[in-house]
């Protein structure tokens, strides 16, 4: 069943069109990746799904409900959560406070603490330093914290905006293992990535954006074999 349905979504920044009639579907338990160069509209798409930028046209349906005009906090309450580009951890807060902030909409303290324990179990690095400032974390650990913070909202669809950006190869490896694990637990993921090869490796579906438009969509294997994509994003110009 379609969990997220984006249909003909358009977004405008002033006179600049950031997204032009973009459509995309994420089904329960699926990983869908959105690929494209810088400025293709990938981050804008995630922000529009979350309601942080207004849609000029088209619509977003989540779990059968039209959320196009709903505010961000309501979309989060319904089960959408984002780990933003550049991680954007609050370095003046402790690791635990960052996680708590991710759960700020939830009122069931016991459930929130169960969630936190599950995240600490997954990331022992964070557990050890839970009361230390988030500024003490490495880039890779900050990304884990950013994902942990997003998970604290107990999402049904996790939005990841370029999570591998700036990470060491070892952490990129770990990150994609994590994405697989989270997905194996039943979580649907919408993954915006620059690391085309890795993203196609984990995704069930892929969509390629160019200047705000969908230029390709389909099975990752088919896309990976497509000469246009290979040329543009896999550094395989030959």
């Amino acid at each position, binding site marked *: 069943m379609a969990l997220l349905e984006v249909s003909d979504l358009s977004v405008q920044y002033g006179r600049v069109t950031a997204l032009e009639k973009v459509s995309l579907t994420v089904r329960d338990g699926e990983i869908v990746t959105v690929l494209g160069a810088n400025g293709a509209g990938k981050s804008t798409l995630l*922000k529009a799904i*979350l309601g*942080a930028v207004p849609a000029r046209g088209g619509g977003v349906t989540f779990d059968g409900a039209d959320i196009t005009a709903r*505010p*961000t*906090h*309501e*979309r*989060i*309450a319904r089960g959408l959560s*984002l780990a*933003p580009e550049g991680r*954007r951890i*609050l*370095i*003046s*807060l402790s690791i635990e*406070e960052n996680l*708590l*902030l*991710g759960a*700020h*909409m939830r009122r069931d303290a016991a459930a929130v603490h169960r969630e936190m324990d599950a995240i600490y179990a997954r990331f022992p690095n964070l557990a050890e330093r839970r*009361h*230390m*400032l988030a500024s003490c974390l490495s880039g890779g650990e900050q990304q884990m914290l950013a994902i942990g913070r997003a998970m604290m909202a107990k999402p049904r669809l996790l939005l990841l905006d370029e999570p591998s950006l700036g990470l060491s190869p070892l952490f990129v490896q770990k990150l994609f293992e994590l994405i697989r694990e989270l997905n194996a637990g039943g979580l649907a993921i919408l993954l915006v990535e620059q690391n085309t090869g890795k993203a196609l490796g984990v995704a069930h579906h892929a969509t390629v954006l160019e200047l705000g438009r969908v230029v390709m969509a389909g099975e990752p294997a088919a896309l990976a074999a497509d000469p246009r994509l290979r040329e543009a994003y896999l550094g395989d110009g030959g």
Partner: protein
Amino acid sequence: MSGYLTGVLVVLAFNVIAAYAVYLPMAAGQLNLGIAGFMAIGAYGAAFLTNEYGWSMLAAVPVASAAAGLVGLVIGFPVLRTHGIYLALATFALGQVIAAVFLNLEVVGGAAGYTLSAYAGPYVVFAAAIGVVLVMLYLSRTRFALYLTAVKSDPTVADLMGISVRGVQVAAFALGAMVAGFGGAFYALHYNFVEAQHFNVLLSVFTVLYVLFGGAQTVWGPLAGAMFFTLAPEALRFGEQWRYAIFALFIILFMAIRPQGLITTSLFQGFRRRSNEASP
């Protein structure tokens, strides 16, 4: 307690309350340079209600503080559309306008000032200041404190997490105005006299300095700043007429060396780490 010491501690109590009034919006990333105006609302409110309507202090102080908070709330919405230096200018102007209104309000004595008959003794003032500190300490342990930090350090990410950035900013501004009104009310009740000229821009600027000096990162900063600014000039009395020059020089040096203020988050972190290492 000697009269001198009591006098200094009363000033300290008022400065602590005022510092927290500035701290609240600053914790959300906003500079309120018009805090004296909100103090004036509290002061004149308490004076008017006790004088003209014979209200008890217990009723007049909350209503006067709420009035200051309400003005903060109503004005906060348009004023907080501005940012940075423009917000500072807007709040600065706001403080001046409020003081000017009271200066011209004949019903509360106009430029001649306004005498009160109700009186709050020094211990009532101390209790009020301690009460404000305790409420602030409590607030610092709530979700609201996390919202303040999120809105201050990264409004974009706060927005993406479904936090109402403007809601938090306006709430912090209005709460700060309410605390200012609370302090102003006790100021009037203690000194039994209010005049609009007291609530001038210097008062606002000094209060901001307490917070910047003490540090706006933690809830302890304003307390430390207000204590330092109140007590240090007294301690420097040996310097006679030079004491303010010595004091000013020290402030300049301090802010150059430690712009983040006296008390910082990482200072607490240091304590915490050391105590963790000490325990097995």
